[in-house]
């Protein structure tokens, strides 16, 4: 059925995507072997470095999460169990109900029984709340960031003048440290003098408390992060938009699509790759939201509506010296991160980009 031209054509283009010397197999061995040996000096040292620090760290951390390590002293690697995970994930059903019912509110902890692990005199709350917030923050932030970045990119792409200047301006916030931006945004959210509220008032609504408002808190954090990083999404999208042939825009116009429909149906769906690559970096930023919360709320106690796994982890580990439990939360956070990476890596693999 399939045209032989077609097949070889695709093979060839596939081949061009991969590297020249990639994809060669059998027989080629002798040279390859030489190549792989000769290229080992290139990838091996970085790999060892990453292996040692990143994966060594993770492995150690996983190990710690299985111990009862708390306070001073040394962890006892002799008795490993999943007690911490049981404590972390106690009562999942109730937690789910509570979280959904009270995403915006403050769920009384009485409804989920906190656990008392053997290594502690105090009860330990499960991680549900902070887990929920983390998911919410990551998803909300990433989606909004991409959306805003896309809109900006389209606007810039549609021929605003001084494009380079604009591009740089949108990127500027990214250059600032959280320590700085958190202070900026505390000021921006001030109900009396903050510009956000001046804006809301200009629209005819009363001043709104934002920073400690359980319904807006997480949103406010996300908003500030969006401010800081949407510029990045913007430039990635801009680049992608630039690479879509003009003829697609024109074909859609000739086909009778309005501008909005043209973007919605023809252009945006083509930005998948850009979305994925922007998402990678944006997720990395989302994982760093800890620093921002830390600076904004003056510590790792941002309150239940904005409590994320990272703040919870630091709290357990460094304030309460519950190292093992802190490590447990860190592992949860890591697994969550993996949930984002896995589809990404898989899609890359599918498209033959690995």
């Amino acid at each position, binding site marked *: *059925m399939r*045209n032989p*031209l*077609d097949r070889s*054509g*695709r093979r060839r283009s596939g081949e061009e995507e991969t590297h020249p010397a990639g994809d060669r197999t059998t027989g080629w061995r002798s040279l390859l072997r030489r190549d792989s040996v000769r290229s080992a000096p290139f990838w091996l040292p970085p790999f060892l470095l990453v292996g040692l620090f990143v994966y060594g760290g993770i492995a150690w951390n996983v190990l710690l999460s299985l111990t009862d390590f708390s306070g001073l002293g040394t962890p006892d690697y002799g008795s490993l169990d999943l007690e911490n995970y049981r404590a972390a994930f106690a009562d999942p059903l109730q937690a789910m109900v509570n979280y959904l019912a009270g995403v915006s509110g403050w769920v009384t902890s009485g409804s989920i029984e906190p656990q008392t692990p053997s290594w502690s005199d105090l009860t330990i709350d499960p991680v549900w709340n902070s887990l929920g917030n983390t998911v919410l923050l990551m998803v909300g932030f990433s989606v909004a960031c991409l959306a805003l970045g896309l809109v900006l990119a389209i606007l810039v792409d549609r021929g605003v003048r001084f494009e380079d200047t604009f591009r740089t301006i949108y990127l500027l916030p990214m250059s600032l440290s959280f320590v700085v931006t958190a202070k900026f945004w505390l000021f921006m959210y001030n109900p009396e003098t903050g510009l956000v509220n001046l804006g809301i008032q200009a629209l005819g609504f009363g001043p709104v408390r934002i920073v400690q408002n359980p319904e807006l808190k997480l949103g406010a954090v996300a908003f500030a992060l969006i401010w800081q990083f949407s510029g990045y999404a913007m430039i990635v999208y801009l680049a992608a938009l630039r690479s879509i*042939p003009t*003829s*697609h825009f*024109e*074909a*859609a*116009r*000739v*086909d*009778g*699509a*309005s501008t909005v*429909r043209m973007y919605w*149906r*023809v252009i945006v*769906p*083509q930005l*998948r790759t850009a979305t994925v690559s922007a998402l990678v970096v944006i997720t990395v930023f989302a994982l760093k939201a800890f620093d921002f919360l830390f600076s904004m709320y003056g510590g790792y106690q941002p309150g239940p509506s904005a409590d994320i796994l990272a703040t919870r982890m630091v709290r357990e580990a460094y304030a309460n010296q519950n190292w093992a439990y802190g490590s447990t939360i860190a592992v949860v956070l890591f697994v969550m991160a993996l949930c984002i990476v896995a589809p990404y890596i898989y899609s890359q693999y599918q498209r033959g980009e690995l």
Partner: protein
Amino acid sequence: MAALTLADVTKVFSDGSDDAVIAVDGVDMEIRDGEFLVLVGPSGCGKSTTLRMIAGLESVTQGEIRLGDRRINDVAPADRNIAMVFQSYALYPHMTVRENMSFGLEESTGMADAEVAATVEESASMMGIEELLDRKPSDLSGGQQQRVALGRAIVRDPEAFLMDEPLSNLDAKLRATMRTELQRIQEELGVTTVYVTHDQTEAMTMGDRIAVLDEGVLQQVGTPLECYHEPANRFVAGFIGEPSMNFFDVERQGTRLVADRFDYPLSEATHAALGDTTELALGIRPEDIELVGEPGDHAFETVVDVVEPMGDANACYLTFDRSGTDPETFVATVGGMQQVEAGQPAVAHLPESAIHLFDRATGEALRNRDLPDDDGVQQAVRSD
């Protein structure tokens, strides 16, 4: 279906304060209802710009474009009822073939879904791409993509087709196939078509008429054979035909044309056509040069520099003097069975009936070749 009229159409690109580019310069032409017009010209001559103005993708600086009786200068592209096929096909990569074809119908008409589906199926079967309907463009070969792009244009049942080098991304064999197919479909649908190409074969074989553009100025509009045999000027003569027409700069001295290396006596009739012009260019097509045995009035001694055998014919590069490193040559096409070898002397006969003479200053054709009476070419010329 409607005629398409360009009246004094001009397009100037001006980049703010920078000097402006006149891409299209007062083009006047009419594409008749159902006609297939091929627009040719060297790169950058304004072909695409002309097409894009017709499509509404580029504003018209001056002049008027009419589709039927309707002035469409200021009509939005979507409302012109014109379909365009792009060189790169411009298929939406994320949509299946079916979605690609439905898109225009959904966006520009109020058709019900079922009707859209039926129309798409119908056009697809016309193009022979029914089996491809659920594939993505990336899963199609070049030729299949081409067919889909065409299908996408057809499905909207437009009043005019515009095509910008639609076959240039295909390989030779496929191009030949698609060429005839495209012609067939256009004939079947009878839709007014403007087709941009820089491929000689396409230009000669596909169109009812050719429009030759150079530097934004229309040089000639005529049937392919008219342009081939009766070029309006030296540019058209040189541009149409491959290998190109050979040109020799000559000076008229009385009834003789004097070139660097030969003297060419003219008949009375030819002489009369030239008026006062003395600075001329003599043009002759490679296939009109005959290699004969004896030098004569119109036959000159030359040396064969290079022979390119093409199977069915040989391209002989002849020169008057083979001593230089890079000798000036002219080409003669001789039959594939005729034995010619590089280095061998040859007598090139330039029959007077086959020569063209151009005013060297203006390029205007003063005299075109004789054509056998009563043949198709002549008829076509007369009917214009």
